[in-house]
């Protein structure tokens, strides 16, 4: 097979790369000539929505990302937050929605692999994972297959890699019938004096390729993930990568060993858009050019073209800039772990991204414009109309019957079937397993400190009112951390929306980001990393807007930690928070949706200053040893919360004041 790098670039070829005519014109203006075939692939990889955040960047900039504890905000592989004593927690959440719908096991597995790699690329050893999953209606023909595949894939990768899964979400709604959501979170621990970044420094230094070999899997994956689905989506199966947790585990150990030698100047994992994205990011961030020689790239298939090598999304690969005098030492570490190690390029001072193959230059592009100066859009948007107030015909039902129906239904039932397929204990530091408000992991090496992790969003609230829904997602994450006794210290956001070219979808994104920003400011809960997943539509139908918030909290002394389950019989149960004059709220409730199939009314508004006062007070009660069991009220309200506390402990509860009141 011959490879023609100089084939004519037709409008059809441009369109098949997900580039719009005006974007192609931008390319022509930028380089003053038609791109080569490889260059077109590189542009499509760098300028797609998934890699460039071109539709969301303008709004992401409005999020609060700094704070006294924040060491690294968005823009790196993951965010970094100081936890004192010379240590920091590194975390991020990322979506793998499209691949998981096409091939659930591998899609979910490589989602976990990708987020773990983001964390250990920064020098951190992963200590906790979570996943926020959203599937279509339980009755839908594909749901069972997707749930079992995704859960097995998450377990298959995370369990073998060796990270405890401590929390997550699993929700069903018909809006996800054709477009499920798989958001994976990972956190790691790092010493604050040995955090590694992706910014290359120094001219003429070796660019080294590490890890697994490059294959043809995942070619064009990021471009696929930036498009809507249609009925032919099954044909895209070859764009889904295949995960190998065994290699990832070795890559983790090899990277941490290598970092300890002092050989690493810069490091970037090869995730979406593989070699292209990692090389361009390292160079662009460091204001350096990069020259790659593809003949040195370890490949697992014969006759790979430069186009395929540049766009492959084969997993478990890293790119590094190393101190040349330490190259031999670095090579020895990777040989010990039986991983590939190849010098594939060099840093340059000309700000060009140059790619050589079989002695021929197949790409020569300006690196800054590819990377941090990629195009950006201010897409038109319309604000979501405020929902009408709930009508007066709210159906009534016996409280006990309603409770049984809710906790027995797909939304409220136990998630044990799911989390028992995940290793929740590995590491020996798990203090709170999934099933409570937040998962808690002890900080190894410290006598009393622990970290709490939660993931939250209520998509039906976000659909009814994106601003209030965004606020509520942040507030619930903050509240869940607080319920264990933790001080919330930082968050990561995974914004899942439909097609941003539709003004009403863009309006959902804008509203939700505004709500998130306002809540994060009010609660001193900075967003330090995140990911945006757009075009979550199938045949023109969008998902519920789903801005997932992953929250991290710090517990100074885990011997004073609260659990959701009652601690002992005979204890008093107190309800904290909303004053009685606010009344009850049933708009967008699970009661209305699941028992009466009604999706009406405004979501419950969040009073952020009240939230903060209540939370700070409850946290003090926990730390003073006064509160023994704490649980937040969310889906299903007081009744479901009490039932969950009772089920978790095997201790019942008697609540007198509920007689003769509305649900």
């Amino acid at each position, binding site marked *: 097979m011959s490879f023609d790098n100089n084939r004519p670039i037709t409008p059809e070829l441009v369109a098949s790369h997900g580039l719009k005519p005006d974007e192609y014109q931008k390319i022509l203006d930028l380089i003053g000539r038609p791109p080569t075939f490889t260059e077109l692939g590189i542009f499509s990889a760098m300028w797609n929505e998934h890699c460039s955040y071109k539709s969301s960047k303008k709004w992401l900039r409005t999020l609060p990302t700094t704070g006294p504890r924040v060491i690294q905000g968005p823009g790196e592989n993951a965010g970094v937050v100081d936890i004192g004593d010379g240590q920091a927690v590194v975390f991020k959440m990322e979506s793998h929605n499209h691949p998981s719908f096409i091939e659930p096991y591998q899609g979910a597995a490589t989602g976990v692999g990708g987020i773990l790699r983001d964390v250990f690329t920064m020098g951190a050893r992963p200590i906790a994972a979570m996943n926020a999953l959203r599937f279509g209606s339980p009755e839908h023909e594909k749901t069972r297959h997707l749930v079992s595949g995704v859960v*097995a894939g998450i*377990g*298959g990768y995370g*369990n*073998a*890699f*060796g990270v405890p899964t401590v929390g997550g979400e699993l929700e069903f709604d018909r809006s996800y019938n054709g477009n499920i959501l798989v958001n994976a979170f990972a956190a790691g621990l790092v010493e604050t004096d040995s955090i590694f970044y992706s910014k290359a420094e120094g001219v003429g230094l070796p660019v080294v390729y590490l890890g697994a070999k490059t294959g043809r899997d995942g070619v064009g994956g990021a471009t696929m993930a930036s498009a809507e689905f249609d009925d032919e989506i099954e044909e895209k199966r070859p764009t889904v990568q295949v995960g*190998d*947790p*065994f*290699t990832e*585990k*070795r890559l983790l150990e090899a990277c941490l060993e290598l970092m300890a030698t002092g050989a690493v100047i810069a490091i970037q994992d090869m995730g979406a858009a593989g070699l292209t994205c990692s090389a361009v990011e390292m160079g662009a961030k460091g204001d350096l050019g990069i020259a790659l020689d593809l003949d040195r790239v370890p490949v697992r298939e014969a006759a790979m073209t430069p186009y395929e090598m540049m766009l492959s999304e084969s997993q478990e690969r890293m790119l590094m800039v190393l101190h040349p005098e330490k190259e031999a030492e670095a090579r020895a570490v990777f040989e*010990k*772990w*039986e991983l590939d190690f190849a010098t594939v390029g060099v840093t340059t001072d000309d700000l060009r991204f140059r790619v050589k193959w079989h002695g021929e230059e197949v790409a020569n592009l300006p690196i800054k414009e590819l990377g941090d100066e990629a195009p950006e859009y201010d897409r038109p948007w319309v604000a979501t109309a405020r929902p009408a107030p709930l009508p007066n015909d709210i159906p009534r039902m016996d409280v006990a019957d309603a409770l049984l129906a809710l906790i027995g239904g797909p939304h409220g039932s136990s998630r044990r079937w799911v*989390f*028992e*397929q*995940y*290793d*929740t*204990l*590995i*590491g*020996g530091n*798990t*203090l709170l397993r999934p099933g409570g408000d937040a998962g808690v992991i*002890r900080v190894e090496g410290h006598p009393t400190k622990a970290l709490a992790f939660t993931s939250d969003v209520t998509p039906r609230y976000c659909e009814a009112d994106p601003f209030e829904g965004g606020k509520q997602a942040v507030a619930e994450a903050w509240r869940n951390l607080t319920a264990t006794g933790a001080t919330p210290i930082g968050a990561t956001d995974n914004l899942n929306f439909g097609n941003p070219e539709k003004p009403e979808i863009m309006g959902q994104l804008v509203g939700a980001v505004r709500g998130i920003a306002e809540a994060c400011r009010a609660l001193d809960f900075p967003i330090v990393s995140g990911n945006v997943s757009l075009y979550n539509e199938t045949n023109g139908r969008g998902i519920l807007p789903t801005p997932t918030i992953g929250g991290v909290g710090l517990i100074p002394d*885990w011997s004073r930690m609260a659990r959701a389950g009652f601690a002992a019989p005979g204890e008093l149960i107190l309800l904290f928070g909303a004053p009685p004059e606010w009344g009850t709220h049933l708009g967008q409730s699970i009661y209305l949706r699941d028992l009466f199939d009604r999706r009406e009314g405004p979501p419950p508004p969040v009073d952020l200053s009240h939230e903060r006062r209540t939370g700070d007070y409850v946290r003090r009660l926990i730390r003073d040893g006064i509160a023994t069991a704490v649980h937040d009220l969310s889906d299903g309200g007081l009744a479901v919360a009490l039932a969950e506390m009772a089920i978790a402990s095997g201790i019942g509860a008697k609540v007198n004041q509920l007689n003769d009141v509305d649900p």
Partner: protein
Amino acid sequence: MRAAVIVFPGLNRERDMIAALKRFSGEAPLVVWHKDPELPRADLYVIPGGFSYGDYLRAGAIAARSPIMGKLRERAAAGAYILGVCNGFQILTEAGLLPGVLMRNASLKFVCREVRLEAVNTDTPFTAGYAPGQVFRCPVAHADGNYFADAETLAAVEGNGQVAFRYAEGTNPNGSLNDIAGVFNEGKNVLGLMPHPEDLIEPAQGGTDGAPLFETLLASAA
């Protein structure tokens, strides 16, 4: 006493095991990389849990055929104590150091939950910390823990007092024959078990039910 932890690529519970051994012996165990030219002298060798070689081919199959296992076999014959947990158990059965095999869980799914174990033969340094018939808590986390042996082997295992632990109170999580959770070799100096006592040894982990195994083993191997 001297304990050594043998590490193959892909194992991932070695940190848990090292922490447990250190907690009960007061000193860090030797850590042996599978390619180390020498197997250092030790009284107790431990193969921890994980996914050696990714569980590719069959859980434990590849590690069981690595050169270091030949040396370990010699030490076992000479009477050294050997403990294999989870993937370590799978490796020891694949290597022929323990009878039987571990098949895919009957559910065909990975399972991580707390089970109850019954101490069966407590007349060994591994199990002397438990009373005969004592039932205690222990977590499991595995996909291939379904113990199987042919009728003849099973009869021998039962007859020779080679059953160390059984899943109790209907908590068998994987379909194991006779609820077997852990077995000895004939000499009772090699033990393999699927559950993870090393993850339940301090109150912060929710209990100390796994502690007696390490306490008596490390005391007797001194």
